[in-house]
């Protein structure tokens, strides 16, 4: 294995969240929800949000995908709980910058663990799909978002 880069990507926190994703369930009282799909690899994710006064009171997800997509969804839900829509937007743009190697991950907390993605451009979409899906849910613009 090209150990350094691989270890950078699959950090212990990521592997842990991929194996035991948090907030992995259906949210019965969701006010907003959306589905995301990556036709290239078949990753699927569904995000449920309970939004009150533009603040995420609760959030959960379900889906199927690789370790990166599962861990990203799991860590995202942990981070987003209690945040306002504006804060979600800010976190998303920082997260995207981190994943594509243009940002340093500051202000991202635990999500900074995805810094290893910069060495794997083909895997950026795995991590961002759930974010796009969350934004779609909050906007309720489309029910199914696609990475393509």
């Amino acid at each position, binding site marked *: 294995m090209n150990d350094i880069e691989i270890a950078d990507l*699959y950090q212990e926190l990521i592997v842990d969240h991929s*194996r035991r994703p948090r907030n992995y369930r259906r949210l019965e009282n969701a006010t907003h929800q959306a589905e995301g799909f990556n036709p290239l690899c*078949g990753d699927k994710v569904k995000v449920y949000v309970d939004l009150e006064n533009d603040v995420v009171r609760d959030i959960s997800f379900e889906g199927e995908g690789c370790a990166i997509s599962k861990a990203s969804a799991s860590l995202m839900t942990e981070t987003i709980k209690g945040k306002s829509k504006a804060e979600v937007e800010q976190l998303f743009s920082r997260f995207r910058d981190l994943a594509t190697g243009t940002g340093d991950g500051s202000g991202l907390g635990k999500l900074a663990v995805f810094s290893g993605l910069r060495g794997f451009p083909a895997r950026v979409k795995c991590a961002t799909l759930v974010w796009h899906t969350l934004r779609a849910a909050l906007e309720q613009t489309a029910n199914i978002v696609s990475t393509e």
Partner: protein
Amino acid sequence: MSALRVLKSAEFDLLQIRRDFPALHQKVHGKPLVYLDNAATTQKPKAVIDAVSQFYRSDCSNVHRAVHALSERATNAYEAARRTVQQFINARSEREIVFVRGATEAINLVMNSFVRPRMKSGGEILISVLEHHSNIVPWQLLAEQTAARLVVAPINDDGELMLDEFEQCLSSRTVFVSLAHISNALGTVLPVREIVQMAHARNIPVLIDGAQAVAHAGVDVHELDCDFYAFSGHKVFGPTGIGVLYGRENLLDEMPPYQAGGDMIRTVTFEKTTYNDLPYKFEAGTPHIAGAIGLGAALEYLKRVGIDRAGAHERGLLAYGTELLTAIPGLRMIGTAREKIGVFSFVLEGVHPHDVGTILDRDGIAVRTGHHCAQPVMERFGVPATTRASLALYNSKAELDALANGIRRLQKLFAISG
């Protein structure tokens, strides 16, 4: 001494063969490339690269058009490639060899020019669960447009087509049968000879999609007795963008053209156009001349190596790799047919194929992950995707060792918090 030499030349010299393929000798992420994605496309031997390069360096010209020397050389080389294909698959005549873009275009050609005119409402097209999307979607399209029905023959848990069940799918409504020779997702070799006999007993014509077969098994369309046979050059060590449709001459003869343009006509007036002879009737426009020449060189190369010797080598690797991989805890092999070629499609407990692909890539190991353009196969086995390692004649046991080691190490990575 000379007797020894003769013996040697009849052997399968893996080192020499590997030297014939320049792309194999490179490092990827600092590791020697282990290319195990041959079902997607194969690497090219120098003989093919040189033939294509020779055409562009000195013979580049259009074919069938001019009287000048270059055009004559190009035409000769293009038609020589057609003869090579004809002999390689044992077709009766060069008129039965149509150059197309690949297996996909060959299937679409048959769908449009042969099956569509015969299709009636309520008619049926019979395929199998094992098909590549390119042998599913054209028929779905036709079924939608003609109110016909797509019938899908089942497979068993080993990924084998069951002949009894297949026969039950044939009926008086069946208009056409289109089946893979070898499954790209699982490596299963289908009993195509028996299938053709069953269909012909009911006067139903058959297309065999040989995209995965030509590089791994001797193909004899005469003995198979199929009506059409389709394959792609790039999966048999030739260039991309070139492929072959074999069709029985009497059938091709009665079919209308697929595309219209230059080269496929004899005379054109605004009142009436008469079509060219076979196979040109189906080769509208300037063809992929360099591609055809490259494909000819690829088949000549394969003939020199010996398809039987290559097949024996690959069977050895298949047995070795099967033992090696099935010994890995948590690895489930998908596709365990008795008759199969060197395709290892598998899932690992607790590790998604996408992650397997990324991690193996950093080891220099190229495998395919995903649904392999065969989503119904994935569904049949209840998995969203698999990791697939697929062999060609230049692969080695050492490469399979590297694969197995890579898998064991990535399993450790994913076990850290377990």
